């Protein structure tokens, strides 16, 4: 924390935006150069298939740094008037599901805006964050501008409660998010929270069916379902329910589960024993509550933490598996009859992070999107990310946005408004 304050006072806050941008561009290029190494490290770190770390995580990390590098000398246009000021030292706590990508989401805008950073990676996934620290050395970033501190909950708590931190950015569970909100209340610390989700993926009867199936699969089985914005509730129009379920089952039968470092693996490992236990508990509850469980016949490796892709049909809005965030490869399928009912069911959750709409009819997509209380609404696609697009939630999914201009202004205060 002292190093971050010193770096802020002596170096980073005095540096011109264009010079900060140069460092960010350099970091982005180094990430690209070392992409393969980072992809392998990320799969070892988290258990996600190399296909995803190679094609999604790492390219997006580079994209995030490139995007915010471009903002560093254009802060006047961040929407806060001329000469907005950095906040100071930002404390950032990130989860284990996208270790390096979440790091990029946090660090890139913070540095572009002129803040220095103390970041704590999740206790189960520190590897790529440490590799990233090496990249920062390679980029010759002034000492203290980014500080990475590994540790568990207590470390995070110390960071949140530290008197000299100006801003806390947290991505993780809603329970911890609540605690942080309580701890920072009344302290003047800025706070953004990106928390859990229970997203609805709404499939209308006129949807491009094969692409919708792909999207549903990608929506929930991407990264083993360890995605806060995962489309974990599938809302299907009742008249196409059977067809959709049949196609979904056929598609799931072609998924390969296994060694995350095999380039042909579609579904990797569950991140921890603790997470696996939670998934098992909730799926057992689903069965008890009368939903029908189905998984494709797939070989489960003997060692490690694995969970076969699972779908539940006959799920009611009141079921636990339709209400609680499972954070695993488990899809709950519900039906609806009309667009109004679809919107009502989609919104009937304490969360509000993301949603998906599948329909061939543009006017319906726009009308339904208007009615959804979710920070991100995808139409005819799912789990697409872009640095220029703000991401964040409603209700218990948190507040503040990451990405785009909005993500930048979360690390800025209007001129004269900063403390």
């Amino acid at each position, binding site marked *: 924390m002292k190093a971050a304050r010193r770096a802020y006072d002596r170096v980073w806050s005095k540096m011109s935006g264009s010079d900060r941008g140069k460092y960010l561009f350099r970091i982005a290029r180094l990430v690209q150069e070392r992409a393969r190494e980072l992809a392998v490290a990320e799969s070892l770190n988290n258990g996600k298939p190399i*296909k995803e770390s190679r*094609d999604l995580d790492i390219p997006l990390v580079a994209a995030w740094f490139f995007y915010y590098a471009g903002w560093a000398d254009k802060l006047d246009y961040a929407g806060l008037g001329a000469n907005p000021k950095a906040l100071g030292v930002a404390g950032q706590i990130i989860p284990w599901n996208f270790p390096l990508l979440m790091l990029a989401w946090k660090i890139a805008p913070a540095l572009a805006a002129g803040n220095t950073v103390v970041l704590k990676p999740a206790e189960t996934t520190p590897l790529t964050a440490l590799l990233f620290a090496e990249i920062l050395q390679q980029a010759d970033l002034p000492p203290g501008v980014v500080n990475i501190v590994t540790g568990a909950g207590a470390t995070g708590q110390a960071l949140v409660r530290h008197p000299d931190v100006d801003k806390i950015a947290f991505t993780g569970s809603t329970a911890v998010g609540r605690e942080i909100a309580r701890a920072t209340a009344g302290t003047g610390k800025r706070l953004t929270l990106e928390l859990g989700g229970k997203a609805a993926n709404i499939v209308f009867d*006129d*949807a*491009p*069916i*094969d*692409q*919708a199936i*792909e*999207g549903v699969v990608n929506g929930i089985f991407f990264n083993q379902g360890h995605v806060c914005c995962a489309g974990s509730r599938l809302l299907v129009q009742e008249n196409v329910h059977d067809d959709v379920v049949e196609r979904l089952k056929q598609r799931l039968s*072609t998924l390969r589960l296994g060694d995350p470092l095999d*380039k*042909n693996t579609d579904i990797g490992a569950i991140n921890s024993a603790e997470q696996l236990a939670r998934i098992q508990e909730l799926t057992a509850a689903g069965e008890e509550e009368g939903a029908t469980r189905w998984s494709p016949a797939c070989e489960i490796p003997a060692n490690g933490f694995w969970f076969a892709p699972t779908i539940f049909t006959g799920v009611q809005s009141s079921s636990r598996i339709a209400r609680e965030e499972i954070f695993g490869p488990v899809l709950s399928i519900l039906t609806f009859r009309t667009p109004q009912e679809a919107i009502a069911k989609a919104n009937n959750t304490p969360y509000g992070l993301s949603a998906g709409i599948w329909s*061939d009819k543009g006017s319906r997509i726009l009308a339904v999107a208007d009615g959804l209380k979710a920070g991100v609404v995808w139409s*005819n*696609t799912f789990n697409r990310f872009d640095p220029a697009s703000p991401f964040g939630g409603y209700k218990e999914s948190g507040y503040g946005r990451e990405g785009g201009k909005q993500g930048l202004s979360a690390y800025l205060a209007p001129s004269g408004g900063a403390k």
Partner: protein
Amino acid sequence: MTIDTGAGSRTAHPASSAEAARAPHTTAQSASSAGAARALDLLDGPVTDTTLRRYLEGIPGVDAVGLEQRAASLGTRSIKTSSKKLALDRVIELIDLTTLEGSDTPGKVRSLVAKAITPDPSDPSCPQVAAVCVYGDLVPVAIEALGAHHAPRAKAHGVTGISVAAVATAFPSGRASLAVKLADVADAVAAGADEIDMVIDRGAFLAGRYGEVFEQIVAVKEACRRKDGDDAHLKVILEVGELVTYDNVRRASWLAVLAGADFIKTSTGKVTSNATLPVTLLMLEVVRDWHRMTGEKVGVKPAGGIRTSKDAIKYLVTVAETAGEEWLQPHLFRFGASSLLNDVLLQRQKIRTGHYSGADYVTID
């Protein structure tokens, strides 16, 4: 227009039409009406422009971005070492080695046939291609050149041979009267062609005259019949480069399947846009759905523009993960290609010897 299918007494159950189509000679029904019976069951009425339009335009649309994304992700599958070796051999076994030039001569066709029989003279273990594909007038030359390797003769000796496919129906544009098209087909069939690659009337399709397109396919299918009962297989070329949209390709695929196609084929190779992975994926989805509905298997043939082993293997992956591995057989999947074979041979040699040779180490046909 209404087409007499002669199948009015049949029940409207999809499975029964599948039975009829698979064993047309055990029923009193003609081949063409077996094809049309497929349609009758689904359309729930006579085959007319109106009923066809109602059906084809009622099929869910295609999201281009999603389709291309899926095709791209299938393209990232990693096929190496022993799998690659198997895949390369399978690619060869699925090739329709093709020459379709105005300048084709008997000499050129004999050379092509020799290449089809012995793709790699340096390696006797190299498999033969599935078929040679030529213009109708060169069918006799091809059959003569094949000799004992010609599929029907080879079959009599219990081995797999090489088929002769002929393009017909005023290929490639299809702009001729139905009578001329049928005469074209009849000539090729009479000359001994085992497979007929016909083109659909894209003009009629784009003008919304689905019934006309349907009727022509049914008529060509009828013209593929031989007296000995061993019908020529019908491949229906959609010419996706002229249909342009994925929605059109999907509708045309359904139309061809309903009308009794044994294969649906992407393109003639004569327009700028030919087979692509997304378009082939889309057609595979159609035959997969048709199989699920009726239990009947229809083949798919991407043609034109597939030149490298790497691309060909992407197609194999797409077939296996969409329609299923059982589709990776010559009677259900083909590559229409000419230059692909030599690239596959170079890759095979590389696996065998450990180093890359060059264009002078494979033969030109």
